[in-house]
């Protein structure tokens, strides 16, 4: 710059600062005009959020910065709380007062406290910021500075950790029960019952049949013993061997056998009476003779001198066995 020009600049009086009071009331009340005037150049405005990742329930700080206004001390704060787009996003919109800017401040900041309504991803709404350009032609003096949208997200607040509490319950519930192999669950099926009863019957029958196959004589003997008379006679004759008078007991047991087995009258006691009775019962003569002979020998043994004649109970046993078809 030439020295003369510098001198003129230094000695010339300072130009007065523009003021909104210089504007007409109609101009002052234009929508989206907050009093910013510029002598030259452009006024700019920008949003700044304290964070672009907010947590639900906490507050955000929004700063609107206006630069290059010639009357920074006269700028008014845009009323965000009156705007629907902001109220839709934020449940709380409060102005945060700050110090008044000096008249020569290069920039002015307006702060707001915002509390998001819900979690999600959002964009801070654009703001249309009108300013008055003194140097512009009269019909274009109101110009617009758009405040660009700012994306931000709101997340759920972290769940506060609850105090660690042990799981309570009856002691037995804290055990895993192992499956038992037996008994299986549910009851035995009908096959079990059929198998048990059928098996028992088959085994019993098999035992009997097998025994008879292996012991044929014993089987016949058993058949004889089914006749009560034979069984009783056998028992008596066996005990007669141990009695003090085996001969008398043998005779008694044999007569009892004849009574029970063939229906001999009880009145027939002597050998002759027995022979007569058996004859009347149509027994074979040889059997009658054998019976009579046995009884006579018993009588003889009872009334003979001691030790001369002996009749063993086994003789009667063998005779009965032969008659019943067991032996001989």
């Amino acid at each position: 710059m030439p020295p003369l020009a510098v001198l003129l600049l230094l000695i010339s009086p300072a130009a007065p600062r523009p003021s909104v009071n210089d504007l007409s009331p109609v101009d002052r009340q234009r929508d989206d005009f907050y009093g910013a005037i510029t002598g030259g150049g452009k006024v700019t405005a920008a949003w700044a959020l304290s964070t672009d990742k907010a947590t639900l329930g906490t507050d955000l700080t929004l700063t609107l910065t206006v630069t290059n206004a010639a009357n920074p001390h006269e700028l008014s704060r845009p009323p965000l709380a009156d705007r629907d787009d902001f109220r839709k996003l934020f449940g709380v919109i409060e102005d945060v007062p700050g110090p008044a800017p000096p008249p020569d401040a290069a920039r002015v900041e307006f702060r707001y406290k915002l509390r998001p309504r819900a979690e999600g991803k959002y964009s801070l709404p654009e703001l249309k910021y009108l300013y008055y350009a003194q140097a512009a032609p009269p019909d274009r003096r109101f110009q617009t500075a758009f405040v660009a949208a700012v994306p931000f997200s709101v997340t759920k607040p972290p769940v506060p950790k609850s105090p660690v509490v042990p799981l309570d319950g009856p002691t037995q519930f804290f055990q895993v029960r192992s499956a038992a192999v037996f008994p299986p669950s549910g009851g035995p099926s009908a096959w079990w019952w059929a198998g048990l009863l059928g098996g028992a019957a088959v085994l019993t029958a098999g035992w009997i049949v097998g025994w008879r196959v292996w012991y044929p004589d014993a089987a016949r003997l058993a058949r004889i013993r089914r006749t009560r008379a034979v069984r009783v006679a056998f028992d008596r004759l066996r005990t007669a061997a141990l009695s003090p008078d085996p001969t008398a007991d043998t005779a008694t047991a044999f007569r009892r056998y004849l009574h029970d087995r063939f229906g001999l009258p009880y009145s027939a006691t002597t050998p002759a009476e027995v022979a007569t009775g058996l004859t009347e019962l149509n027994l074979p003569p040889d059997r009658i003779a054998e019976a009579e002979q046995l009884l006579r020998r018993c009588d003889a043994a009872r009334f003979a001198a001691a030790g001369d004649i002996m009749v063993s109970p086994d003789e009667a046993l063998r005779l009965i066995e032969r008659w019943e078809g067991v032996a001989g």
Partner: protein
Amino acid sequence: MTPVALLAVLALGQPDAAFRDGLDLRADASAARPKFVEAAKGYDAAWQAGERTAATATNRARAHALAGDLPGAIAAAHAGLRLAPYDADLLRDLDTLRDAVEYPQALRPARPGGLRSRVSPWDVLAFAALASVLAGVGLARRFTTRDGWAVPLAAVGGVGLLVAAIAGWQLAREERREIDRPVLVVVRDTTPRKGNGDTYPGLTEWRLPRGGEVRELHRRGGWVQAELANGVVGWLPESAVIVP
């Protein structure tokens, strides 16, 4: 394990493993509970797929209880007892679970009684097998060697078989009674009503508590006529009860 049960268990993971994980995390209820929920689902699937044993029922009931599902636990215990009514673990668990139900007076069901809760069909089978042996040996000896003790032994066996038959008949009778009047478990506090509709007045001043048990008599129009433990008969909505 049937193939279907195996697939179900594979799909839902091993419920035993989840149960054990829950036991390991027992010190922290909030961490342990999800494991027991997982175990309960696994046991449910295995049960539905046919893996029905007293052990599965016991673990199923315990998993539901530790997961916080009291009605589910009681229902699982009943399902197991329907299968093995004599099982001591299940009977004890059911008793313990009932302690947690806030029953009004005289509404707590009595402990399961009858022969079924004392004797298993397998016990009867074993007794019948012993009696069959006695009867068989007695009869065999009676018709072979004719020992003097054969007939008394066969008689003892015969009496034993008779006792086993009577016990079996009684078990079947008690089982039939259970089938005819199955247990239902109440899943939420409910007022029994005098008829099958919300417009009918309540039967009682109190409400049937969650986890309470009733016996089903009839069903009509989305309602269940049920007998309470004190013998009172009322109607409950079907949505308020579950069938074990």
